[in-house]
């Protein structure tokens, strides 16, 4: 299985490659990709440098253009596909059907990967994308249980990549409009969820409050550690009880599932986190490289080492990890 790591910057890209990524993915410095953060991502010069660095070391580079262009953005998004093509990337990660169609017709020889934002959760949906745009690979949304992944994998007409580690989207990706409901930006339209521009922190007598466009997302008591106010991970009131009504702030970690994922024929595991620091990327990439190498060396004997588990827990939201939807009981 291939290890696919995030690159939010050139140092992160180099770190990922140096620590064992088989492939890295990046986006341009605008809202054409789903991690639009200030100071993050690549201009053409940096991208070219990163691609050369990766290629010299035998790693591949994917370019994510996985937001949804509206008519007035069409030329910009199409231009991003052209830029990726001229940079010589190894694949373009796309979600929008119109853009997939453009890429398939204009650049048939550049492999197309379906982004997780394309919301393909069944082999029929994968066949739709395969038949219409000849995609080579698809990234599965983080909503399927392992049994359901098995079902999809059995009939999939394309390679599959699954999320292995990082922030956990609990909603079917590509069809979550919660962020644009509270703010004016969503992953689909602007490549942003719970955008930083809308976040405010206030120290109050009741505790530290995090707000998103003035909506109270969470309030932290003494000794509680505060996290970024991603709106689905706040504490809300439902029928008189206050709790994490949608999801706790935890990270996805599927180390335990590696043997099963390999057995299902999954082609690649993906690390989330283009917004993370190079130091974070180094630790995560190194840990997963070791795990994948162990899996290859001793098939049937794979166990998760305490060392890996501790490293990844330390890098997780709230220090907690979950198998997420892969584990049926989580639902």
């Amino acid at each position, binding site marked *: 299985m291939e290890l696919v790591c995030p690159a939010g910057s050139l140092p992160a890209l180099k770190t990922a490659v140096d620590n064992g990524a088989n492939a890295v993915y990046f986006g341009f410095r605008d809202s054409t990709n789903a991690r639009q953060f200030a100071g993050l991502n690549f201009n053409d010069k940096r991208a070219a440098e990163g691609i050369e660095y990766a290629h010299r070391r035998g790693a591949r580079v994917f370019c994510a253009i996985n937001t*949804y*262009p*509206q*008519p*007035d953005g*069409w030329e910009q998004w199409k231009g991003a596909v052209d830029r990726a093509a001229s940079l010589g990337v190894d694949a373009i990660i796309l*979600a*929008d*059907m*119109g*853009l997939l*169609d*453009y890429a398939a017709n204009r650049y048939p020889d550049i492999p197309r990967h379906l982004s997780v934002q*394309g919301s*393909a*959760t*069944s082999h*029929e*949906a994968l*066949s*739709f*994308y395969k*038949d*219409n745009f000849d995609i080579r690979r698809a990234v599965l949304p983080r*909503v*399927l*249980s392992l049994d*359901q992944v098995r*079902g999809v994998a059995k009939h999939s007409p394309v390679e599959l990549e699954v999320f292995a580690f990082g922030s956990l989207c609990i*909603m*079917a990706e*590509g*069809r*979550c*409009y*919660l962020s*644009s*409901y*509270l*703010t*004016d930006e*969503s992953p*689909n*339209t602007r490549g942003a969820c719970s955008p930083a521009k809308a976040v405010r922190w206030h120290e109050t007598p009741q505790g530290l409050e995090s707000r998103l*466009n003035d*909506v*109270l997302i969470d*309030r932290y008591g003494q000794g509680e550690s505060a996290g970024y106010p991603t709106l689905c991970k*706040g504490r*809300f*009131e*439902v*029928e008189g*009880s206050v709790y994490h*009504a*949608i999801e706790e702030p935890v990270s996805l970690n599927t180390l335990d599932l590696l043997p099963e994922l390999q057995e299902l024929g999954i082609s690649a595991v993906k690390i989330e986190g283009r917004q993370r620091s190079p130091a974070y990327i180094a630790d995560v990439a190194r840990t997963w490289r070791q795990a994948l190498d162990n899996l290859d060396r001793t098939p049937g004997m794979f166990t998760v080492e305490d060392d890996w588990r501790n490293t990844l827990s330390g890098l997780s939201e709230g220090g907690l990890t979950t198998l997420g*939807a892969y584990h*049926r*009981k989580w*639902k």
Partner: protein
Amino acid sequence: MMKLSLGPILWFWSKQTVFDFYARAAEWPVDTIYLGEAVCSRRRELKPDDWFDLARDLKACGKEVVISTQTLIESEADLRRLRRICDQNEFLVEANDQSAVQVASRHQIPFITGPSMNIYNVATLKVLAKQGLKGWNLPVELGKETLEQLINGLKQEGLALPAEVFAWGFLPLAWSSRCFTARHYNLPKDNCEFRCLQHPDGMELRSRESQELFRLNGISTLSGSRYDLMRELPEMERMGVKTVRLSPEHQGMEEVVERFDQVRRGEVPATDPLQLVQAPPCNGYWYGKPGMDLIR
């Protein structure tokens, strides 16, 4: 005159409640009725054949009927239900996922896309037109500016693909594999005791300052405020919107339909307030603002 449609029931109601609702709806001035389960695979008060029987009854009453499909497809059982819906030639299908587009086009069944299909540009509409698209819903997070560009773009391409706009009700905003209703009751999803039946218009999720943010409805999350574009009807007509969608609620729906009908006929001013069930109104998305905003 613009058409009025009743979207699929997004909540979980008992079989009798559903039958009673549509018995009344047969008499309402709606042109199109979407039938079927679009949210949760565990909601099986009505079997596919029950839906088809209901569809034939409503068709006999002069309604155009479209069979809706599940939005989040997760299992082989979900796909079997989808194939069952597409294995007929009496009714149009509402495709709410690419799985449905694939199956419908294989069966050569014409389809309409629901608001959860990501149609953000004309190139996407052209792709779907080749598969048998007969009409499409604007994604809920898009507003009038984008809609106008899309309609004009279709005209330039010479494509006659009528646009439908979700104009009244709680906005469907997200789908998860997790069931938030079961989570609230500390029940596993696979043994949820069908608690959604106790919440015919969802469960309110409020901030700790009592701001109504969302409505939890099984695996789906809807807006906490009710989207209301009634006063935009004249503008939509000018733009060339063909159908306006009203999302079913178990109380007050008849008055909603009546009022939208009066407005589309120009019998009452679009600005007359419509005050029904308790929930704040919103219309932000239409103006390119946060969806929860109310622009007056």
